[in-house]
């Protein structure tokens, strides 16, 4: 009979009390494991996104955390938008000019130019002169500022130059947020998101397709209305290639857009927030009703000279008629792209040379129109200043629960001491010395603590396993039963940085074992001393 067996026996001799004690310890440990796992999940989800494939995000002025949550994680309340032309400032000349030609300004310039030509042909000097002077004034830059002003209060549409920041940056990818598909966010963007963005720089990986292909700017079959869905979305909502999906406006319970997008691609699981988003061609996104920025004034050319005062009734009718016309246009199978003046983007994802990023940050943030954030920095700050303290607080609380459970071990053993004293005396009479009987008690509290800890550990991991679908949903982080994160380096633990051991890392959870041992010894100490002090002759009875 080993001391271990003796200690074990005295535990099993009082099964109910022992089990209750272990359960109480187990609950504490379960909470610790759960908190550690959450800690690991959060850390991992942050780490997963530490390499985003871009280092700068530009969006509307406001909370930078919210902008990052929106653009990086597709979480939080939608943020304000910025002008489309702001996006164009991040493009090289050729691309910029091409995009900006889809504008009222350019169209009216073209129209004016043609009118002038026609007038010239017709010999109508007066009209030709007016039109010509207008368009000539606008040849190149700036282009038809008056027309622009009539359309919106946005910035001037200027052609023939590089975007202001275009040469300082690479790969501007616009994101338009606001719609939902099921509970997932719909992201209007350009094909570059999947063609160009290297999200895992370390392994040089772009987002890959499990099925189908990337959407294109304009396809013969679907026009501007192609979509790509994330792996999780496809799985959960059973989306297949060729399905037609229609986003809901503004919120998961918003009205359903009439416009349908055809799913042409399903992404492979990447463990990033892209798993749980739907990506649609931005051109198509703009063409959904309510997505065009409403014009402040009448469109130039619609009713050019009839600015005479209208009655309210007339104005309302006029508005209705215009809206009807817009809707008709929108319903067309392959409508014209939305003019630039009516476009907005939520964010622009950009790669900027780290050397010039701070300068760019200043330049943009000092302006009125937008803010530049460094997502990694914001994520890090969020993590360091919000997530970590919360986690440590949670951990401290759960550790305290363990201490309370430890005290319940003490109470349990101590309560049994009066009945145990006789047994202890008998063992002493059989030749056990004081230390031996003390050890038996310590072993007993250790077994209770570790047994409870084991129970709690299993329960904690089972809990994690059970919660893993929810966690995966929310964070894109996959956890199994054996979720060993976070790890702690052995070097840190031993306080050395040299040697082979220092490079090994251990799961933080393993610290539970020494922690429980210490706890068991601390709480077992008192009853052990009491056992040690047992007066044999008195306790033996007859």
């Amino acid at each position, binding site marked *: 009979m080993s*001391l271990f067996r*003796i200690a074990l026996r005295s535990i099993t001799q009082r099964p109910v009390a022992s089990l209750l004690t272990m359960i109480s310890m187990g609950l504490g440990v379960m909470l610790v494991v759960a908190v550690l796992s959450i800690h690991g999940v959060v850390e991992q989800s942050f780490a997963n996104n530490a390499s985003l494939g871009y280092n700068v995000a530009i969006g509307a002025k406001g909370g930078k955390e919210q902008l990052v949550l929106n653009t990086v994680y597709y979480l939080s309340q939608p943020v304000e938008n910025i002008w489309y032309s702001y996006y164009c400032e991040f493009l090289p000349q050729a691309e910029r000019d091409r995009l900006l030609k889809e504008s009222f300004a350019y169209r009216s310039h073209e129209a004016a130019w043609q009118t002038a030509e026609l007038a010239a042909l017709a010999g109508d000097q007066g009209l030709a002169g007016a039109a010509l002077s207008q368009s000539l004034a606008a040849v190149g830059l700036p282009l038809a500022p008056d027309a622009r002003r009539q359309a919106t209060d946005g910035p001037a549409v200027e052609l023939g130059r590089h975007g202001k920041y275009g040469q300082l940056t690479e790969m501007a990818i616009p994101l338009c947020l606001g719609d939902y598909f099921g509970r997932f966010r719909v992201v209007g963007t350009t094909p570059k998101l999947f063609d160009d963005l290297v999200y895992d720089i370390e392994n040089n990986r772009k987002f890959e397709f499990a099925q189908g292909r990337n959407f294109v700017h304009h396809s013969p079959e679907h026009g501007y209305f192609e979509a790509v869905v994330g792996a999780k979305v496809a799985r959960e909502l059973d989306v297949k290639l060729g399905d037609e999906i229609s986003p809901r406006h503004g919120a998961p319970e918003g009205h359903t857009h009439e416009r349908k997008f055809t799913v042409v691609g399903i992404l492979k699981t990447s463990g990033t927030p892209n798993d749980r988003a739907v990506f649609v061609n931005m051109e198509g996104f703009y063409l959904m009703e309510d997505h065009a920025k409403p014009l402040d004034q009448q469109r130039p050319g619609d009713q050019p000279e009839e600015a005479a005062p209208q009655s309210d009734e007339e104005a309302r009718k006029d508005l209705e008629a215009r809206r009807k016309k817009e809707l008709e246009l929108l319903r067309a199978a392959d409508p014209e792209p939305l003019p630039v003046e009516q476009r907005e983007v939520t964010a622009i994802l950009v790669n900027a040379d780290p050397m010039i990023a701070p300068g760019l940050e200043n330049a943009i943030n000092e302006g009125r129109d937008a803010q530049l954030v460094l997502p990694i920095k914001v994520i890090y700050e969020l993590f360091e200043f919000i997530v970590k303290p919360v986690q440590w607080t949670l951990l401290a609380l759960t550790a305290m629960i363990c201490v309370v459970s430890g005290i319940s071990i003490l109470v349990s053993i101590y309560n049994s001491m009066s009945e145990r004293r006789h047994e202890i005396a*008998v063992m002493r*009479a059989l030749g*056990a010395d*004081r230390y031996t009987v003390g050890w038996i008690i310590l072993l007993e509290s250790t077994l209770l603590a570790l047994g409870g800890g084991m129970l709690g550990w299993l329960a904690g991991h089972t809990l994690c396993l059970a919660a893993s679908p929810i966690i995966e949903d929310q964070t894109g982080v996959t956890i199994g039963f054996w979720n060993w994160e976070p790890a702690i380096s052995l070097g840190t633990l031993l306080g050395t940085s040299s040697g082979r051991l220092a490079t090994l890392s251990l799961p933080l959870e393993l610290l539970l074992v020494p922690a429980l041992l210490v706890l068991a010894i601390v709480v077992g100490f008192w009853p052990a001393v009491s056992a040690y002090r047992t007066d044999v002759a008195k306790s*033996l*009875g007859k």
Partner: protein
Amino acid sequence: MLTLRNIKKSYREPDGTPLPILDIPQFTVADGEQVVLVGRSGCGKTTLLQTIAGITRADSGEIVIDGIDIATKTEGYVDRVRAAKIGYVFQTFNLLPGFSAFENVMLGMTFARGRKDHGRAIQLLDRVGLSHRLTHRPAALSVGEQQRVAVARALANKPSLLLADEPTANIDPRNQQKIVDLIRETCREEKVSLVMVTHSTEVSGQFDRVDRLEEINQVKFNDTTAGAAA
């Protein structure tokens, strides 16, 4: 094998005045000898056995077991001597209720160094006629069976001295003789010296040597022939 000299032991009364219990000039048990101690209740028989076993320390005097005076040794040493050389049978058996008969016997050798002989435990239980009761807990055994387990346990560590404190006092009359026989026979077989306390004249009458622990706390040697043993 056992010699006591000038053993003095007193308890303190609640008011602090000393209450002398033992004052034994000389008490000797030879190797393999079987001694019965008689005396009226409260005269100090249990105290004497516990003093010999080192469970209670004497105030003064020598307790020499196999040539070692345990009265001069540390408690830890005395514990080891007890674990190795002494077996103890109690009036109330004192089996541990959570352990089976076999485990209780194993406990008899657990605290001695290097002797955890399963075979011996089984053999001893067989010897006391309980080979069919190995896995029974004490509560599932009759009192006679319990005391037999206790005897096996006391002998488990191959002691040189067995102390039995009224081993039959709680046993039904039919089984008393069996227990006494068992203790005496096994002690003889194992060449263990025996000091047994009893109130039963029937029992004491069977012993060659009967010592009376008088109220005056002096061991009187009824059997003068035993005085030769050292």
